[in-house]
């Protein structure tokens, strides 16, 4: 290549001069390499040719569009372009595969070299590219290309197309071998696949990427092969290894495919590939996964559940059945746990265990049972479902279901039936009693409440459907704790009320807050009363409670207050009415209790302190005057009904403070029976409590609570309807029902029947009127 540059106007000479160089640039099997000098010579020869020709336009004109000679007058390149095109075809056609290499290897080897060469070639023909090609293309010639593109197109048409089938086959075979882990991932196929990308062109804008070759000639075949491979593999693998192993396998497979795709494929394929994999590996096998789900829950295989979840999550619609299964499972577990508790209770009772003790334990055991199920699956939702809101909701639904409606809460109702909250669930009451157990001072030795907490109470509270029922029961028990002074801590009490308020509403806890306010006011009142009082021989611990907030029904039975207490009572009433004119005091004698000093101890010992209720006190006080009274006489003195008198006197006899004659409980209530106070009382304890033996009417209390709840609901519904109708004036029946249900939601779940009864009543009271058959109007 040391010869002189050819004459610039001689095409043939020029071409002969550059051809050997072109061969080297594109790559030949010879050992010779491109030298900078040669490169420069070739470039210059082509440059000279183009320049010279352009300066002296010739009549033979140019290749292509030469109809208008003036346009081509100064730009020449057509002949040499044709020469080059012809040369490229010949060059590619003479490439040969070595005997020891596969077609793929040959293709990739040549392709890599060729693309580098094409780049150089493009530079060598730079002048032609910049002037002649550009001019031709801007004149609308779409079949003239820059030299790089020309190289690639020629490759496409004379190497790629004729060999596409074998190329594709070898690529796919390589991929399959990789999938079977017979060979490592290698870069060869990556180059081969990328050539599909490079060979796509947008005829109108050569710089724009065009994936048509990649998509039609490669991607589709790749996806088909993938689908086929995994369809077969997954069927077989599942058959032999089962779901759990299969899911692990899928995990690995998906990771492998992902890293393969990153290396050999382009971004475009990721979505369709994921679809194919999801279909072959997941969607086709969801049913067996669903079937396995309950087993995994049974065996608490959180990791496998997580795996199943993350697989199904790749195809969101497949999660829906899992949600349903999960909800049903949690519900069933909840019901099962409660049923077991019920059975063990029943067994314990039939074994003769003191049923009273079990009754007292029930709230705690029951709430604990409910909680355990909730906590177990709350953890599953957290660990396996990543707190996915859909699963949180399913868990909530299931919990609301089994917590409100189970064999203990609704003994009469078949739990397999549809979920309707007909009748009243016992859960609110049991939860209130759980709270009472937690918050009430316990017997000294007991640490039964060590594992109970306000948080547990709140966890169940949020699932309670009848929040109003809980409030009523809780408030009744709170009232007893407050006036009996057996709270564990006031802060704890108030913090629970604070939580209830936050969770529900300010209104929800109004009554309870008022009760605390009454307690504080009563305390101040007591100090004030003490100051006012002239004599202080009585230690009066009085509570003044507002009737609306406290659940104590008026005391209506006959009773005569002993003279000893009458003075204090009257004095208090007088002073109180001076302080607050217009307020009326009603005395709840049935809630009063007191301590009495009894000088019945052996001489030299301190007196006994007897804790008694007010009625017992009124029975005992007369014994200061005489030693013996008949039942009839006590009845006259106290004015208590015989039944009431008998129930109060029984513990006094039982614990041997009074001696009954004749003996026997059947005689206690007979009017002639005599009671004599002992001369010397025998007890190891200095303080004796006689109140515990008095029978309390608990059933009555429960009915009261139930009645209160129902009355409140009735008036709530009526008020709610009036409020809605006042705002809307006219409303359709169904819309009204919906609004009422919505507004009641935070308190209870009203039935349509209850709402309709309230509507009937309001029509009757002429608050509402029917219009058009299914609407109501508000009558102001």
């Amino acid at each position, binding site marked *: 290549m040391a010869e002189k540059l050819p004459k610039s106007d001689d095409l043939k000479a020029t071409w002969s001069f550059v051809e050997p160089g072109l061969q080297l640039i594109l790559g030949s099997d010879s050992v010779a390499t491109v030298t900078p000098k040669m490169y420069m010579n070739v470039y210059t020869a082509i440059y000279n040719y183009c320049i010279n020709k352009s300066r002296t336009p010739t009549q033979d004109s140019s290749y292509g569009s030469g109809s208008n000679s003036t346009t081509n007058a100064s730009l020449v390149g057509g002949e040499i372009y044709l020469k080059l095109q012809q040369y490229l075809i010949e060059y590619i056609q003479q490439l040969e595969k070595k005997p020891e290499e596969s077609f793929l290897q040959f293709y990739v080897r040549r392709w890599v070299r060729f693309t580098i060469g094409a780049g150089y070639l493009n530079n060598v023909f730079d002048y032609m590219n910049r002037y002649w090609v550009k001019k031709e293309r801007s004149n609308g010639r779409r079949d003239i290309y820059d030299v790089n593109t020309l190289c690639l197109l020629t490759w496409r048409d004379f190497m790629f197309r004729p060999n596409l089938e074998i190329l594709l086959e070898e690529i796919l075979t390589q991929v399959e071998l990789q999938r079977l882990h017979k060979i490592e991932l290698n870069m060869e196929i990556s180059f081969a696949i990328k050539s599909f990308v490079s060979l796509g062109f947008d005829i109108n804008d050569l710089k724009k990427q065009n994936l048509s070759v990649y998509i039609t000639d490669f991607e589709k075949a790749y996806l088909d092969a993938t689908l086929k491979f995994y369809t077969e593999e997954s069927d077989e693998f599942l058959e032999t290894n089962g779901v759990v192993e299969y899911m692990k396998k899928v995990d690995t497979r998906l990771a492998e495919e992902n890293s393969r795709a990153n290396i050999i494929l382009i971004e475009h394929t990721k979505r369709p590939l994921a679809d194919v994999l999801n279909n072959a590996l997941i969607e086709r096998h969801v049913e067996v996964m669903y079937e396995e789900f309950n087993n995994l829950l049974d065996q608490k295989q959180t990791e496998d559940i997580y795996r199943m979840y993350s697989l199904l999550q790749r195809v969101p619609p497949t999660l829906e059945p899992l949600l349903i299964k999960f909800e049903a499972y949690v519900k069933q577990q909840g019901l099962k746990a409660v049923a077991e508790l019920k059975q063990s209770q029943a067994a314990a009772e039939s074994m003769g265990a003191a049923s009273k003790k079990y009754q007292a334990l029930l709230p705690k055991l029951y709430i604990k049972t409910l909680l355990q199920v909730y906590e177990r699956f709350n953890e599953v939702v957290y660990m396996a479902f990543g707190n996915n809101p859909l699963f949180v909701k399913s868990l909530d639904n299931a919990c609301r279901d089994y917590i409100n409606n189970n064999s203990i809460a609704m003994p009469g109702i078949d739990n397999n039936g549809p979920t309707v909250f007909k009748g009243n669930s016992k859960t609110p009451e049991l939860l209130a009693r759980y709270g009472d157990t937690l918050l009430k001072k316990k017997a000294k030795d007991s640490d039964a409440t060590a594992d109970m907490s306000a948080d547990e109470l709140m966890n169940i509270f949020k699932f309670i459907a009848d929040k109003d029922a809980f409030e009523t029961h809780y408030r009744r028990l709170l009232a007893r704790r407050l006036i009996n002074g057996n709270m564990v801590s006031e802060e704890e009490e108030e913090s629970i009320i604070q939580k209830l308020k936050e969770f529900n509403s300010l209104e929800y806890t109004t009554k309870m807050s008022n009760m605390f306010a009454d307690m504080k006011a009563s305390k101040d009142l007591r100090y004030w009363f003490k100051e006012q009082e002239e004599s202080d021989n009585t230690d009066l611990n009085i509570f003044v409670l507002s009737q609306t907030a406290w659940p104590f029904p008026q005391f209506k039975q006959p009773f005569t207050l002993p003279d000893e207490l009458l003075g204090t009572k009257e004095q208090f009433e007088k002073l109180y009415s001076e302080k607050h004119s217009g307020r009326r005091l009603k005395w709840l004698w049935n809630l009063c209790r007191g301590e009495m000093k009894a000088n019945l101890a052996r001489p030299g010992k301190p007196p006994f302190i007897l804790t008694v209720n007010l009625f017992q006190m009124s029975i005992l006080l007369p014994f200061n005057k005489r030693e013996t009274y008949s039942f009839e006489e006590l009845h006259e003195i106290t004015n208590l009904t015989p039944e009431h008198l008998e129930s109060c006197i029984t513990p006094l006899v039982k614990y041997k403070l009074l001696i009954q004659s004749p003996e026997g409980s059947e005689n206690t209530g007979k009017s002639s029976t005599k009671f004599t106070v002992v001369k010397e009382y025998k007890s190891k304890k200095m303080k004796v409590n006689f109140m515990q033996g008095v029978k309390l009417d608990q059933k009555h209390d429960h009915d009261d609570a139930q009645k209160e709840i129902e009355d409140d609901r009735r008036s709530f519904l009526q008020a709610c309807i009036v409020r809605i109708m006042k705002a809307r004036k006219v409303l359709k029946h169904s819309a009204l*029902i919906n609004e009422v249900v919505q507004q009641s939601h935070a308190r209870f779940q009203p039935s*349509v029947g209850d709402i309709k009864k309230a509507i*009937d009543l309001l029509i009757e009271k002429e608050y509402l009127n029917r219009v058009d*058959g299914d609407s109501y109007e508000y009558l102001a």
Partner: protein
Amino acid sequence: MAPRSVQKLVESFKEVTDLRDSEATAWLTKYKWNLEDAVEAYLTQTSMNSQGQNFLTQEQKGSLISLFNKYKQDGEDYIGIDGTIQYIEDLEFEVEDPVVLALAEFLESTQMGVFERAKFVNNWEKAGISSIHEMRQKVLEFQRSLENDEQFLKKVYDFTFKFLLDNNQRTLLKDTAVEYWKLLLSHYFGEEKMSQWCQFINDEWQFAITKDQWQMLFLFMSEWNQKDNFIESYDENAAWPSMMDTFVEYLRAKTSS
């Protein structure tokens, strides 16, 4: 408006109505000189007036009043119990006939066995009726309507509730209600359906009947009468009073057992 066209309108109005100029002008002014409107309003009003005032001749009205006097209670201005019984008898109907309720509705009676003079005279007069014979024809007409005109039956039925109440009562004793349900509705809605309803009230219902319940029962019966599977497809969530829910539940329990 130009005097000439005014005059023209007045003339046209007079052609139709036969009124004096001043009266014609007044009508036309009232209807903003729209001839058609004015004529129509005039004709409507005058025809109404003549109906109201000229239905009975003086002579006829006299006999209507003496008819009232014949039955009216001594010293009072209304027909009392005895007079009513006699009146019904003279009309050749039984006192227990449901048509008596239609008559009571027609004569705007407020209470069982009481027909006030003004209501009696005005209502018969409006109908152009003055003799006992014509009255019987009218009552026969009521009787036919009770049998085949649901709107008419409903009017009489709704009237009956208020008619049966004592002064300060708001609800009807269930026994009374049952008695009148049978009397009024059995024929129209069928013996079987009514007796099912009445049996339900007798056996299961413990309250007095409200106006709403009374009125809604008619619609309930009407739908039951029209739809074959009304009870099967009854929707408790619809706007029926809850009493109907209870009844349907009762019926369904009865059929399933």
